[in-house]
């Protein structure tokens, strides 16, 4: 495990911890998801460089496109929840259950 491997492992663990801990805004949790995706992208594009296999370079591109789907869905859910609940605080989603 080189230091570059260590950097994205620790970035992923930090992001998933920040996702699971208490966040104020819904968009902060979406940002934590995006940072998890960023560390996964760097990991997936660093492994083929180290293994010298060019065909595995497809996987980070595929993951980037699917994470674009995920980000779009997250933002539309944010819009929907801020329209039905008034604000995007995560506390509101607990308080105003319907």
């Amino acid at each position: 495990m080189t230091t570059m491997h260590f950097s994205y492992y620790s970035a992923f663990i930090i992001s998933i911890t920040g996702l699971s801990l208490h966040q104020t805004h819904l968009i902060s949790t979406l940002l934590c998801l995006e940072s998890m995706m960023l560390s996964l992208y760097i990991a997936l594009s660093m492994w083929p460089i180290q293994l010298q296999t060019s065909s595995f370079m497809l996987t980070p591109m595929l993951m980037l496109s699917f994470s674009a789907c995920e980000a779009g869905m997250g933002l539309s859910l944010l819009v929907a929840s801020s329209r039905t609940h008034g604000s995007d605080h995560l506390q509101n989603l607990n308080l105003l259950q319907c």
Partner: protein
Amino acid sequence: MMYFMFLFGFCFVFWMVGVSCNPSPYYGILSLVLGAASGCGVLVGMGGSFMSLVLFLIYLGGMLVVFAYSSALVVDPYPAGWGGLGGLVYVVGFVLLVLGLVVMGSFLCGVEGFGEVTADGVGLCVVRLDFGGVSWFYYYGSVMFLISGWGLLLTLFVVLEMVRGLSCGTLHSI
């Protein structure tokens, strides 16, 4: 080059801590953009310049939309930064987590070598590794290419249905 790689890797982890420690969304998105730029630096140092270009153009271009969105959504005149006791507790906790991971990793696996193997580590090549690798999309990966394009198109319609309106869209059934 080792020192640059170490610097970019450190900045990457540092800005991920900045995203995760529950700041205002202004500062969160700023940390995410700077962390993505540091990740681009890491990839350039490893030799994957095309992957870094894709990350910088597409990912940061998408992040610009999210940035405008979050800054329009949060209308606090004085956004809460990383300051205060709560944010400090988060930062100290994450720094301790990273230090624990360093100690554990150096005991278990041994942490050494900054980016020893790069894209042209085995010698000169005609086509760079990442340029040649992504071009497999049009040959072996064509099915996955079509599937991901179909997924993006589906996401477009799903988002349009989600945000269409309170009277007739998906939100009407809630």
